[in-house]
């Protein structure tokens, strides 16, 4: 499949689009699960950029970094979901807007 290689700028642009899709998802959705998924989307955008640059500079540190990002994303998703579960246990629903104790 390497014959489907596109110019590097395209991959970066694609990564950027994915990243901003994730940002919009984080800001605009009330369901915390979907927020976490949007965060995963952002992580993947970053991974795409890393891998692109690894290919560009023929340096597999990019791959390593992407691998570590995946690991961290997994850990963070786990903890995030644990928080959601705990919040769900307190009141029988979850809504991002409920966490408004810091309202000033």
């Amino acid at each position: 499949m390497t014959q489907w290689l596109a110019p590097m700028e395209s991959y970066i642009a694609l990564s950027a689009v994915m990243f901003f899709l994730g940002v919009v998802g984080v800001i605009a959705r009330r369901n915390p699960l979907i927020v976490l998924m949007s965060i995963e989307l952002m992580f993947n955008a970053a991974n795409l950029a890393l891998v692109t640059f690894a290919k560009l500079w023929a340096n597999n540190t990019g791959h390593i970094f992407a691998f570590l990002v995946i690991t961290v994303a997994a850990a963070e998703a786990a903890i995030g979901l644990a928080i959601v579960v705990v919040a769900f246990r307190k009141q029988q629903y979850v809504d991002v807007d409920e966490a408004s104790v810091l309202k000033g």
Partner: protein
Amino acid sequence: MTVPAHPLGLEGSYPLLFLIWLLPLFGAILLWALGPRFKSFAGPIGSTMIGVAFLATLAEWHDATAISGGLAGAHQTLFTWMPGFTFGLLFDRLALIWTLVITGVGFLIHVYSMGYLAGDKAFARFFAYLNFFIFAMLTLVLSDNFAGLLVGWGLVGLASYFLIGFWFFKPTAVAAARKAFVINVVGDVGILFAIVAIVAHVGSISYGDTFAQIAAFSPHDLFIVCLALFIGCAAKSAQVPLHTWLPDAMEGPTPVSALIHAATMVTAGVYLIARCAPLWTASADARELVGVIGALTAIAGAVLGVAQWDIKRILAYSTMSQIGYMIMAVGVGAFDSGVLHFLTHAAFKAQLFLGAGIIIHNLNNEQDVRLMGGLRKTMPFAFIAMLTGVLSICGIPGFSGSFSKDAILTATLAHGHPWLYAIGVLTAGITAYYMFRLFFIVFFGPYRGNVDPSDLGVRHPELAGTAASAGHHPEEMDAHHAHAPAWLMSGPVAILIVPTVLIGWLAFGGADSPWTKFWEPVFPKVSEAGGFVMPELAGTLLVLAVVLAGFAVAYLRYGAPKVLAQSVPRLRTESVRMPPVLANAYYFDAAIDALFVRPSMLLGRFFGSIVDPLVIEGVVHETAHTAGWLGHLFRSFQTGLVRVYALSIALGVACFAIYYVVIGAAR
């Protein structure tokens, strides 16, 4: 301590000078602090202080008149503040004469006050104020430098404020005191300006240094300095246009009017000009100005004296007019004549005021002459006393006033001012007219105290004849109003008859008189072109003729028997037909009100209602408001919603990204 470079007097140590100067201050402090304890004993204490000061003055006579090697009088250096600013006491002939009057007449008036104010609740306070005034006046007169003069000047103004407003529960008294003080401050500013100019030119404040370096002034600068000094004189001596405070100052007790508004404080201007004779001698323009103002004041005051019905106001305007004579005299350069008139005026004006005080006191504080009449039968002593005063002020030959008045008029003509001479002669006639008018209305005819005041044309009948109108508030008198022995009041008046009549005889003999010889070493001679020396006899006869004419008119209008029989309707007609110009004192008060008072109040109101709330408070208010508004703005960011926070994080990152991508790339 450094002596000023050109002291005017013989340097030395004169402990009696300190006694003269500081004893009244000691008395004032003592009576202020412990007055209520002393009660009526405060009177003798205050009087003793001044009496001792007077005796000390006599003891210092020899030192004051000493002359040696170009220096005259006694000089005592006090302390040096900085080079050029040495403060000291100068006791020379000029200071001697003034101090004698201040302490002598002051002592008599202290004794008189013990009788006049007996029973007043604030008895001790009065004597404290009187002593303080004596101290302030002595500071003015004994200083050897302009700054000390100014200190005394200001303190005298303060003492005048205290004394005019002595009965502070009277709103008219308070207003009068304030008016006097404010106008005096205008004069203070003038003198301060002059001091600044003098220091700028000469580098020193002492009289001696200034007079020795007159050449340092250009003629224009010298005129400015003299003008500034004269503004101070005009304010203090009630010369036009700063004279409006003097008639109102009669709100104070009569002894106060006698002491400070007749004999001493108002003559401070004359003293200043006499002291600075070298300055005036060097500036012809300044002399011209002073002479004109003096003459103008003399005649203006006399004309207003014709229109008054309050006995003290008549005397107040006559004071203004007589001081005008003195100012005119020193203005044309006849310094010794001016000082002589000061001396005689102090005697006869104090006499007149104290006599009037006796009348007021005995008539239970009645001051309107329309409600008097025929008092020569009921108060013969006052009649005799006021007669001597009236004869003296009119300049009847043989009495003191005539010597000084003739001397002034002759000198005015001799120094080349025929117009001023004419005004002076005319004023003498008017003086005779209004003084005898006063005399006839008060002492002749039927007693009108029981007549309904509105029948006499008195405008505020509810105030006439009551204690409140003249000052003694009924509650201010002790319940058992012990009448003080009558000799306390009549004694000083009797004593004053002597100088009223005789003191002018010091100048008998013209150029060879003891008086002229006394002043020869002091005053420089002023020579003017165009002077006409009138023979003495002719001059005296001319003035006498005018005076007798004034007397005749007064007699025909007020003193003739058939006039006296009709006194009530005639007085009423005159009251009603009094021209408003005269009744309102040439509208000076109205003019000052419109020119200065109203604009000041408008300005104050402008600042108070517009600038203050909008600008100053506005700045403060708007600062606080902006802080609050900013706070609200930033508070609105704290919605508490996680999504909004996420958005703001994103925006922050965006800013960073833009910076690094767009701007960083440009580098």
